[in-house]
């Protein structure tokens, strides 16, 4: 019985020739990550252990991104605490406001993850880096503390679902639509405890930004990780961003999967997840009339340059509908600058869109775009739980940047095909 891609990476990091699903192993970590919400708890736990130093100053990354720039005094205190910790422990990869970005945009951009790595992060969307062919998963603050102390983490080896992608997505269909389609198909616990492995000739038709956005939402199907095969596009991305050595793992021919899904990308329609779960999906053709109050384009799911380009393409020389608040969040400072140089920021501002500094802000109802009771938002973010973006009586509709931008022009959920 062969191993899946994930199992091979875990076996190599546990120093074992072979692992099987369900086996408990201890794996060496290539990176331990935390943010301003989860790191304070991890620091408290780390200090209780009583060690002076983290296991490797180059293999810990701390990114204050959730409530930054500090939204209130309490948030400022939390950031101060982790900043002091980072300085004291000489953490190489601490990224202050001004250098930072939303962690899951920033970490790959800084070249801190490469194919074959094992990464844990005290943020559930750490699964994003599976786009690079790494094993990457979200854990809690205590695991982060133990990881910073020992450089190791225990895992139960996951079984896997295999998604064989073929064909090419149509013009306005992005990675976001594909992953929403998949979550709608298998449910929010459809991949519980499992890996989601994305393979097949269709992968070559997906950009790295598409892949990041798909791996990012593996957790919304309950997945332990989402992972893509490594191809020329991956290698090109890695060479451009990193000097780290990488290892390409591929699943064995006879690897066992719990289930195999074949997905023809050419048949996927723009897809929207209705409140209050990411699996409550409808194609754009089934949406009906849904009036909105706010549009959010950005986040660790969809704040990358391609996302901003597609939004700008739709908004160029047009005006957002009267009364609709539209907020764009570039995922990192680098993406922000690139968008500025490409003229996208000008397009947004002229269209009546506000452009924010990178922050998780509204995605989790933190700050910078909170909804009132009864208000509705179309968002390119990743969760639409009750109260996610503000008042428990508000609603979030998850969609691609194209659908979000088209909706900004009409004030209701709109098919980009009808606009452009």
């Amino acid at each position, binding site marked *: 019985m062969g191993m899946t891609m994930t199992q091979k990476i875990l076996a190599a990091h546990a120093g074992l020739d072979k692992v099987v699903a369900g086996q408990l192993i201890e794996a060496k970590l290539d990176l331990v990550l935390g943010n301003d919400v989860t790191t304070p708890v991890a620091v408290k736990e780390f200090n*209780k252990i009583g060690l002076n130093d983290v296991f490797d100053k180059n293999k810990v990354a701390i990114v204050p991104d959730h409530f930054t720039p500090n939204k209130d005094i309490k948030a400022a205190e939390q950031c101060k605490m982790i900043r002091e910790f980072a300085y004291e422990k000489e953490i190489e990869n601490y990224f202050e406001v001004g250098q930072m970005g939303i962690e899951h945009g920033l970490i790959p951009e800084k070249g801190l993850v490469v194919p074959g790595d094992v990464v844990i992060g005290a943020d559930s969307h750490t699964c994003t880096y599976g786009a690079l062919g790494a094993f990457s998963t979200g854990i*809690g603050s205590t695991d982060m503390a133990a990881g910073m102390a020992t450089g190791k983490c225990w895992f139960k080896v996951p079984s896997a679902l295999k998604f064989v992608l073929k064909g090419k997505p149509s013009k306005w269909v992005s990675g976001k639509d594909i992953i929403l389609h998949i979550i709608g198909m298998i449910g929010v616990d459809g991949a519980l405890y499992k890996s989601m492995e994305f393979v097949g000739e269709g992968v070559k038709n997906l950009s790295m930004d598409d892949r990041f956005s798909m791996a990012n939402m593996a957790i919304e199907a*309950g997945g332990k990780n989402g992972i893509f095969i490594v191809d020329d596009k991956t290698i090109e991305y890695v060479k451009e961003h990193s000097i780290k050595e990488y290892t390409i793992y591929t699943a064995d021919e006879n690897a066992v999967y719990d289930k195999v899904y074949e997905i023809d990308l050419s048949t996927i329609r723009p897809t929207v997840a209705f409140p209050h779960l990411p699996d409550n999906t409808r194609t754009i053709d089934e949406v009906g009339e849904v009036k909105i109050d706010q549009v959010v384009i950005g986040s660790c799911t969809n704040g990358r340059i391609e996302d901003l380009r597609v939004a700008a393409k739709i908004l160029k020389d047009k005006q957002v509908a009267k009364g609709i608040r539209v907020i764009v969040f570039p995922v990192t400072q680098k993406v922000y600058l690139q968008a500025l140089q490409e003229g996208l920021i000008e397009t947004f501002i002229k269209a009546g869109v506000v452009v924010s500094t990178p922050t998780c802000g509204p995605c989790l*109802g933190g700050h910078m775009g909170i909804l009132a009771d009864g208000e509705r938002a179309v968002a390119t973010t990743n969760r639409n739980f*009750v*109260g996610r973006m503000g008042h428990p009586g508000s609603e979030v509709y998850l969609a691609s940047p194209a659908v979000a931008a088209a909706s900004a022009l009409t004030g209701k959920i709109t098919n980009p095909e009808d606009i452009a």
Partner: protein
Amino acid sequence: MKKKGRVFKYGNNVDTDVIIPARYLNTSDPQELAKHCMEDIDKDFVNKVKPGDVIVGENNFGCGSSREHAPIAIKAAGVSCVIAKTFARIFYRNSINTGLPILECEEAVNGIENGDEIEVDFKTGEIFNITKNKTYQAQAFPEFMEGIIANEGLVNHIKKNL
């Protein structure tokens, strides 16, 4: 180790945003977090919950964010145990690591109603429904996990065993 309490029962996919909304994550103080536990799904929870009470959910309890504040808030609210058919994996890890006992038991979830009084034995995995005079069997914790829970979390457990 046995705990007794009244049941607060909820449905499928109780997510970490309703367990502790992100708007309160500007602190990690357990007592502060406990004040807002379950607020967006059950406004009265914090006023009604008493030490020892038990939360029962259906499938995929604790889905969503990796915030450890979720099990911390539940524990600080006085809840002695969470029982569900299945748990989201990060929540499962976080609960054990912070010393919040959680049990997977489909039979118990099907049999228990909101407001029932139950007693949970973590040593044997036995769940006794006092109200209905029925017993359900969950898998008992292996010894090392029982140790983590008895020591109120992974870090204390590591320290104690150094």
